[in-house]
């Protein structure tokens, strides 16, 4: 029941966020059609505003926006004049989703083994090595890492394409560059969690019963230790799936990341609001999914 209630809350929260975004965007100085060149005449300016209903009162514009939203139409992009927001999202979202999902896989694929080894070999060389990588992953920002990867793997060695999107090799560098930071976070969370679990009394009990080390670690210790990782997965996935401005810019990838930043600067109101809707819905749903995963993994939550 609780779940159902939260699911029903999602549209309400998205609507509140979208409304805030709608009005905040319009509070910013300057408008979408302010340009260096003055309009040819007042009539030209008026015609432009009328075409996009910017001549109407804010209330009417808001109602128009809600009416569109009800039918799933996010309106025209004010900047990319031959495309609707739906058109652009249809083109850009699959790209960002693909990249984000792959980076998510990278983050877990690197982060979980690294954290696991770090905790098991705590204080020995696999831990030191892992910690060094984690520190590097967290500290080196993507806007430094990505160009370095391009310099080394693409320009020096010539193994991988420098940029663009469309073939498998083009996917590798951005995926790694985007995933590494998250891999580091995941590894750190798991290392701490697992280290703590290994000190818990039930582990001692299990050991005393004569359980094999492998079974002990994988079956008993790992599961409760994954909880912090799982709770981090929700926001991490939302972050990754909605596109990364830096990675998409460095690798010239046609995802949503660039629109997130640029549509504010170009005062592309519908585009910005559309993205906010997508992002907030994704975030809410993923948080819900995280809670579900919690139920699966932690009986304390399930029975609470």
């Amino acid at each position, binding site marked *: 029941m609780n779940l159902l209630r939260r699911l029903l809350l999602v549209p309400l929260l998205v609507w509140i966020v979208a409304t805030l975004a709608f009005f905040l965007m319009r509070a910013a100085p300057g408008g979408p059609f302010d340009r260096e060149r003055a309009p040819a005449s007042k009539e030209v300016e008026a015609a432009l505003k009328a075409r996009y209903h910017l001549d109407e009162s804010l209330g009417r514009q808001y109602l128009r926006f809600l009416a569109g939203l009800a039918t799933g139409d996010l309106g025209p992009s004010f900047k990319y004049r*031959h495309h609707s927001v739906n058109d652009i999202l249809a083109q850009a979202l699959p790209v960002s989703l693909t990249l984000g999902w792959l980076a998510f896989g990278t983050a877990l694929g690197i982060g979980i083994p690294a954290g696991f080894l770090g905790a098991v070999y705590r204080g020995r060389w696999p831990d030191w090595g892992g910690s060094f990588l984690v520190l590097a992953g967290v500290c080196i920002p993507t806007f430094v890492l990505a160009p370095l990867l391009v310099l080394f793997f693409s320009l020096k060695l010539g193994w991988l394409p*420098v940029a663009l999107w469309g073939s498998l090799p083009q996917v590798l560098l951005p995926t790694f560059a985007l995933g590494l930071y998250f891999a580091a976070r995941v590894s750190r969370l798991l290392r701490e969690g697992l280290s703590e679990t290994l000190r*818990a009394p039930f582990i001692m009990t299990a050991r005393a019963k004569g359980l094999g080390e492998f079974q002990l670690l994988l079956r008993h210790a790992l599961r409760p230790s994954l909880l912090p990782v799982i709770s981090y997965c929700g926001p991490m996935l939302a972050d990754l799936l909605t596109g990364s401005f830096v990675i998409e810019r460095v690798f010239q990838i046609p995802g949503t990341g660039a629109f997130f930043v640029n549509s504010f600067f170009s005062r592309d109101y519908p585009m910005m609001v559309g993205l906010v809707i997508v992002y907030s819905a994704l975030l809410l749903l993923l948080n819900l999914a995280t809670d579900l995963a919690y139920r699966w993994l932690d009986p304390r939550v399930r029975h609470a």
Partner: protein
Amino acid sequence: MRPPAPSQSAPASRPGAFLRFARPLLALFATLLFGLIPSGCRPRPPADLVLHNGREPETIDPHILTGQADGRIGSALFEGLTRFDPVTGSAIAGLAESWSHSPDGKTYTFTLRTNAAWSTGQPITAEDVVWSCQRAVDPKTAADYASQYFYIENGEAICNGAETNLARLGVIATSPRTVRIQLTNPTPFILELLASRVFAVVPRAAIERYGDQWIRSPDLPCSGPYTLESWRVNDRIRLRANPHYWDAAHVRSKVVDVLAGDSPHTALNLYLAGDVDFIVDKDMFPSELAEALQARPDFHRYDYLGAYFVRFNCTRKPFTDPRVRRALALVVNRPRIVERITRMQERPASHLVPFGTGGYTPPAGLEPDLPLARQLLAEAGYPDGAGFPTVEYTFNAESKLHEHIAVELQSTFREALGIRIELRPLEWKTYLNNMSKLDYDMMRSSWIGDYNDPNTFLDLFLSNGGNNRTGWGDPEFDQLIHTANATLDRTRRYELLAQAEARLLHVGAPIVPLYSYVGFYALDTNRITGVHGNLVDEHPFSAIGRLPR
């Protein structure tokens, strides 16, 4: 109340539970992971030429577009009576094969080519030309460049709503193959104007049928050398040669990929890796690497019609006093700005109109003269800067360059005149908004010429000019510009324009010009042919091609 479940018993009580839950999750994860890759990746056959065009075009409707990147695509798809020469950038015959003009220079008659045709194979007629011009100037179309029609009879009246009958525009079909253009003044640069996008011939049927989305409609009829094959925002536009273009035989590359991206460093990487043949856009030059790249043989420098200058708000104290404006203009150290900050071999310019514009020789502006500057400032009531209010210098903050120039000007004014300037960096739209509302003291400004004639810079500062944005107006300046543009003799006309420019710079001084722009393009001339540096920065795609290896 239930006692809390002891945490340690749960995992031990159901061994294998984790794997049981994890297995379907892992399977789902793997399916999504590998299932998604193909959806994002669609291989396509390689193009004959790959260009990096800079930013994603906002629109490629030739009448509505304003950006340079947009314009290059617009020109590839649609042509007008004239077009830009790939070598010199001056106007040459496009859809019109020939023209003549009346002795007073006010009536031009154009004859269309017999083989001028849409990409659908239909002939392009004089009616098409007339309808296109009427569409561009109609305020309902909301074309920013409709002001280019103000030189044509009734163009201005239609654009500002005083004349509602579009047929009264001075562009008339006198036969299926001849178009007469009636000008209000002998306009010496009319052929260059006609080559600009806002005069391109566009397909009436598609526009009337599809409205705003016409340019992405299926089987779009194009009048230029290319047709639009595909368009993915922020990725690329693919152009395919128009088989019915009148000069189809000379279109060098049949399939052209035009990449869009806003990172100069990525553009450079793509070029260095050989994925891009030619970086067309001058904004895609990473200015941090200016010195290293200029040394390379494949980076080519060219002058173009752009001016960097500072605007004074002449409606705000202390800049209401022309002596103050002149004093500040007299202390600017231009060579230092160009050598230390911009470092692209720009030419310092104390005049507004860039060197070489239409063969015009600009007059010298206010060159450095410290004693005179101090004297003017004292006369204005601020001896050694005493009592001078703190003023703001506004600039757009996207580029470090503007900030460095702002800091340089700040220290120059303080050291030379004892004036305190505060810096006010603004985000682009806020900056534009402040400029149009005259909400600034001093402001970084620039202008890119629309056509190769000094008028494109000078008419900015007409008293009623929409792009004046300084609050300055001078009837004598206005008169000189109007007289010049009604003069047929080029030498005499340029004399008058030079007088006007001198008056602008020396008497009014609403602006301080700093330098004229230069552009760089990256191109290996052993591999690619058909690109030539020119003042108008026009590089028609149809002329560009890979050389056989």
